[in-house]
């Protein structure tokens, strides 16, 4: 298939791997920020094919995983209000919140006891639901990074132009560069480079990562999601790390421009403003979240349903936070594969297809 098979060519992969073997003359450790990368690396078996000198750690790039349990609790509370339809992307329905065992602790459980939770594939579907259910309140659960947020912004703008009175968004969106800073500032993991998230960077632009070489002396290679994309990015990082010349290298030229997607950026600025946000594993990170601007207040589910949500707790023993910061690999968590499995997930990293724990368990690394 065009634009796919070229990036999965086994012969080319072998060539790149052989090159890496020669060039990585000392041990290096790179973090792939994005859960999509973690998934692709494990699925293709790249991790075991890389030379012993090159280690990859997964980062916080799974939007489902970094949603704080308080966010899930709030979504469950909203979904259970009379007359509410909660529209969400599929992965979110299985993520456990912070309620004790025996209580309704996920959207899937809320749905089983009567809440109207609907899986949608796009915010436009959520708008359709609002149009055809005018007597009910439709709340869209806005989860995701810079990749997804513009589509939610577009839906809000559309809802405003149609004067849809029954549509609102619970914005739990997160921004990736501040989270990367938080990880580097914490200094818990010694990294030699960052594999930049391809889809996110197609929106924010490769330039948005310039702070990594400039402020942290950290090489960054923006990567696509096919095995050869990732190998190319690793090769670029090895090159920069060995030469001691950190820069931002765009290895995803077919999707990413230096300036990114300006239209999407404008849309984000129009609808959202930047606020502190709570991340699972990272705590509250300054300037890392998106909230609706005052002009769009009527589409903000927080303002429309000012419901108290009890303080919630992370599940006992769950080390998703450490996994999200790259401090431990999933198998190092005592619950991994024993208490916590994809069928009975304790933490969110075991739920999402992009979660590192689910990927490690699924592919048996």
């Amino acid at each position, binding site marked *: *298939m065009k634009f*796919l098979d070229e990036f*999965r060519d*086994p012969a080319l*992969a*072998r060539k790149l791997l052989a090159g890496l073997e020669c060039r990585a003359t000392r041990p290096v450790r790179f973090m792939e920020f994005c859960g*999509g990368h973690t998934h692709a690396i*494990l*699925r*293709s*078996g*790249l991790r*075991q*094919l890389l030379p012993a000198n090159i280690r990859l750690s997964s980062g916080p790039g799974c*939007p*489902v995983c970094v949603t704080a349990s308080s966010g899930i609790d709030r979504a469950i509370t909203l979904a259970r209000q009379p007359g509410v339809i909660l529209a969400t*992307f*599929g*992965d979110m*329905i*299985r993520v456990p919140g912070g309620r004790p065992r025996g209580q309704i602790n996920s959207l899937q459980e809320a749905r089983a006891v009567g809440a109207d939770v609907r*899986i949608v*594939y796009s915010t436009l579907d959520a708008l359709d639901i609002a149009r055809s259910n005018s007597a009910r309140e439709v709340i869209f659960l806005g*989860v*995701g*990074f810079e*990749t*997804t947020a513009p589509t939610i912004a577009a839906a809000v703008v559309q809802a405003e132009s149609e004067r849809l009175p029954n549509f609102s968004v619970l914005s739990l969106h997160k921004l990736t560069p501040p989270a990367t800073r938080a990880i580097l500032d914490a200094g818990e993991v010694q990294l030699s480079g960052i594999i930049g998230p391809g*889809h*996110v960077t197609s929106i924010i632009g490769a330039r948005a990562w310039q702070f990594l070489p400039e402020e942290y002396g950290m090489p960054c290679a923006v990567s696509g999601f096919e*095995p050869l994309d990732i190998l190319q990015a690793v090769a670029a990082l090895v090159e920069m790390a060995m030469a001691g010349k950190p820069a931002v290298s765009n290895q995803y030229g077919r999707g990413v421009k230096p300036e990114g997607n300006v239209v999407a950026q404008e849309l984000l600025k129009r609808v959202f403003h930047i606020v502190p946000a709570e991340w699972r594993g990272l705590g509250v990170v300054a300037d890392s979240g998106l909230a609706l601007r005052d002009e769009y207040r009527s589409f903000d589910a927080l303002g429309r349903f000012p419901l108290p949500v009890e303080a919630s707790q992370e599940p006992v023993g769950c080390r998703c936070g450490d996994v999200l910061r790259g401090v431990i690999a999933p198998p190092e968590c005592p619950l991994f594969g024993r208490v916590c*499995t*994809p*069928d009975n997930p304790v933490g969110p990293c075991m739920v*999402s*297809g*992009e979660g590192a724990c689910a990927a490690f*368990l*699924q*592919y*048996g*690394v």
Partner: protein
Amino acid sequence: MSDSFVVLAHGSGGRLTHDLIREVFARHFRSPLLATQDDSAVWSPVVPKGARLAMTTDSYVVQPLFFPGGDIGQLAVCGTVNDLAMVGARPLYLSAGFILEEGLSFADLERVVQSMARSATDSGVEIVTGDTKVVDRGRAGGDGLFINTAGVGIVPPGVSLSGANARVGDRVILSGPIGMHGMAIMTLREGLRFSLPLESDCAPLNGLVETMLEAGPSIRCLRDPTRGGLATTLNEIAGQSRVGIEVDEGSIPVPEAVRAACELLGLDALYVANEGKLVAIVPAADEERVLEAMRGHPLGQQATSIGRVVPDHAGRVVLATTLGARRVLDMLSGALLPRIC
């Protein structure tokens, strides 16, 4: 029928029910056993010495009712016929239970029933008994129509197929390209259109199975990779037989349209449902003969060997990736959900 829509009275057991049975079900199913209109179908079984009876049941709730390459009626016959075929049984008779939602159009019902009749003829089975219930509008979620079919078949003497029979050294054969049924349904539900054709592979496999058993009577196990897809089926066999299975990623045929749709929705074709494919575990010595026989049958033209049964990692399936790495191929967990970004 004079009415256009199913109403509650069609399930009351009274005159309207009788009209429905006579003018829709009996008219299309054309079974002498059904035509007696007694409470049960009654027949004298002809069971050769050493043969055994097989019985199975399955319920069909697919939505939408009609999809490229098939419909719920065809699925309800083929699915149950295939379950019988997978234990080596020759399917004989089916029952058909219908739950109709008030407001279902008769045109749709008739289309489904005609399709069932056609599939029954194609697979050589007879629908000999049935039941109809009508539920209030909304109780079937607006889907309109659920079907349950049960089937009875005869397992010929000497045939013994089971998921527990796989032995180290056996080969794994797949009858053709995977993922077509699941992706045909999913893309239709999501309103996605592709320039490449994407049709359900729904088909009765009993003819193919008969051909295979003639060529290789020592076949150990047959399984149709429906819900959960190929990956889940292989895991079931590895678990039941307490053996390891190793498959080569590059040898598994995935049609381009399925790959494209999977890429778009973030799904893995190895977990997507099929309705007209089978996996066979055969002794290595019979591999070529069985493959040749399969390729001579219209439903097995693209049959291919995809892996082997190994002594290591009992109960688990390992995939050799096209890049030359090896990783676990796990069972499907939860439901198939497209990813966020």
